[in-house]
């Protein structure tokens, strides 16, 4: 068993609104950062988990997040990824 770092990102589904991201994008553009097309805001959870392999680590974070309701599948989308 080894320690792996796994990043879990929870944000609203694309079909839902994202007041935080929309406000930030709007204010950034009005500050002159025209290159910003959009911002979606979300929560990031950086896990360190013990696992047998990278796949196992990702699998286990995905499972924990859904079992413990770190996100709500009816409104959120999640991304799970390995980080260095």
């Amino acid at each position: 068993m080894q320690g792996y770092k796994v990043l879990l990102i929870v944000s609203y589904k694309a079909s839902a609104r994202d007041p935080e991201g929309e406000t930030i994008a709007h204010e950034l553009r009005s500050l002159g950062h025209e290159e910003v097309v959009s911002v979606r805001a979300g929560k990031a959870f950086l896990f360190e988990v013990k696992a047998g392999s990278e796949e196992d680590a990702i699998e286990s974070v995905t499972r924990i997040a859904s079992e413990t309701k770190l996100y709500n599948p009816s409104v959120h989308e999640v991304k799970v990824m390995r980080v260095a």
Partner: protein
Amino acid sequence: MPLTSFEIGYAQEALGRRLTREELVLLEAEWSEHCSYKSTREELKRLKTEAPLVIVGPGRDAGAIKLFDDVAIIARIESHNHPSALDPYNGAATGVGGIVRDVISLGAKPVLLADALYMGSGRTRHSRWLSKNIIRGISDYGNRLGIPTATGLAWFSEAYEKQPLINVACVGIAKPEGILPGSVKPGDPIIMLGNTTGRDGFLGSSFASKPLDESDVAAIQVGNPFIEKLIIEALTEAFDKKLLSLVKDLGGGGLGTAIVETAAQNDVGVVIHLDRVHLREPDLEPFEIIASESQERMIVVPRNEGALGELFSIFDKYGLEYSVIGYFSKERKVKMLFRGLPVVDLPVGLAVSPPKTPREVLGREPCNKEAPMLRNIDLKEAVVKVLSSPRVSLKAVIYEQYDWGVGGRTSLPPGYGDSAVIWLMDNTKRGFAVAVRGNPGYTRLDPFVGAAISFAEAYRRVASVGAEPLAALDNINSGNPEKPEQHYYTLRMIEGIAHASQALNLPVIGGNVSLYNEDESGSMIDPVASVLVIGRIEDVTKALTTIPIGDSPLVLAGDTKTELGGSEVQRVLLGRGYGRPPEFKPIEEKRLGIFAKEVSEKGIANAAHSVSLGGVVATAFKMAYKGGVGVTIESTAICDCDPVEALFSESQARILYEVKREKLQDFLSLAKAFDIKAGVIGNTLKDERLFRLTHRSNKIMELGFEDVSEALEGLENLG
């Protein structure tokens, strides 16, 4: 839910042609239970809605009364039950958003939020997840608006494990002459203000009019309190400058419903260019624009043409989007066009009059299965169990997440008084009091009496701080109207509210009915009526808190009978309620109310607490614990009956006072003058932090603060 074939046939026959897709969608929303109240409309006529100080009764976005000659109160209550079951955070948050928009629709400045939450046991992960997110949703939205959530109630039971009930209310103030007439005339332009219209929240209101189904998630809406705050700011400025004649929230049913209702109320027609609405997704179809329930949108109508420019510059100042989408017309028709082509052309009258929906009711007398006797029980255990019931234990974990003090007006914050007392902050000491109550334990056993008691309890809580009750609002939460045995509860609760409003002589200035609260197996939640009462207080500095100071007599005002039906002690010891709820006693309540006002004006008591859940013992112990003082109680002084009955009876029309020692005689004579039974039942202590019960002077129980602190603070692990 989709229109029935009977309803479609009815409309097509009236029109002599087929309905367009847009018309179908519009009627589906407009004729839904949520918007048309088709199952309860007739019964709701029984409520007392008139009184000299009522300015606006039920029917508009909110009700209004005169608080003082120069101050009006505007208020509204609404449920957000269905969305909150799937997305507790946004469901609760958008509930707050909607209720606030309703109140500003009358030209008011919102100054108070109240919430009545009926949530799961807290024993399953799912119910904890729901409660936590519901509370966070209200907190995040209400706090960002800068409106204090300063009173509420929180009930917990398995009946709400998956289907919580979220009732939220907003109270605003205005000058009586500042209340918007809400009238429009042909030719008036219609401006849509606020958020863009999108596919989110499509047909949410008909979704609230049928049993839950996971496929409805498309209706989930994310609230944007920041935009709403800007709308409040902009409209407040526009109200001050008298630029508006009508403001209306786009709530359930979206643009279509708001437009149709405004036209009907004003007896005019309307022409809307759907392609002028500012959109989130450019490819929205006309039927989607009509029915979208995107949040934070309103329609506003300027007072006159000349106001337009100034209005737009206010909206621009706050960075709000808006579009001029049409105008009111003479011909009493709802016309909607998309890129020049007509898509809706309906007589206004037809649009607001769904055909009668016959509903059957299965009359079922309250199930009066008598309770097993509760005598010779372990008193200590019973007391600790009652105090650790989440319904009874302290609620700080909830209200400390709410910004109860923003605005600087909160004179009695949550946890310190029977109602929230709000100071007007107008160089006087005037204010108002608000309490909201509901008891599903009673309404489950007897919906009529249970609803009346909710009314009485809210009334009493307003009175006990020293305010004069002036008006009420109610929120009925119940089951499926298509099932006769469930619809029975709905109708009986409405009758209970009607009876209480007549008997207590208090007008009902608004309300809300939420039906179809059943789970996927078709069983109904515990039905409940939340009642909110508003009262007037001339001098907020005289408002009585629930916090005793110690070393003073405890006096119970009101008569105690052996009424354990549906009580908290039954629930915690027997697992459920049995028998009949306590008697609803309107004459006693009214008398007690006037007495309570005198007590506060004369300044003869330190503290007052309406007696309810858990009876005298729970009420007294909670007061003492919060005040950090001990308490002793003699059970026979409450009632010459078995101590269990004396201590835990939930008889109505009772207030427990800590009376100023030197004013005891004055207090007792005043009670006598009002023909109110009142007697010393014990004392608060100064240095001993303990709870002691005696029966005929024999000690029958003693607990230290440390023995109950875990019980009373048990909710902490909820948040």
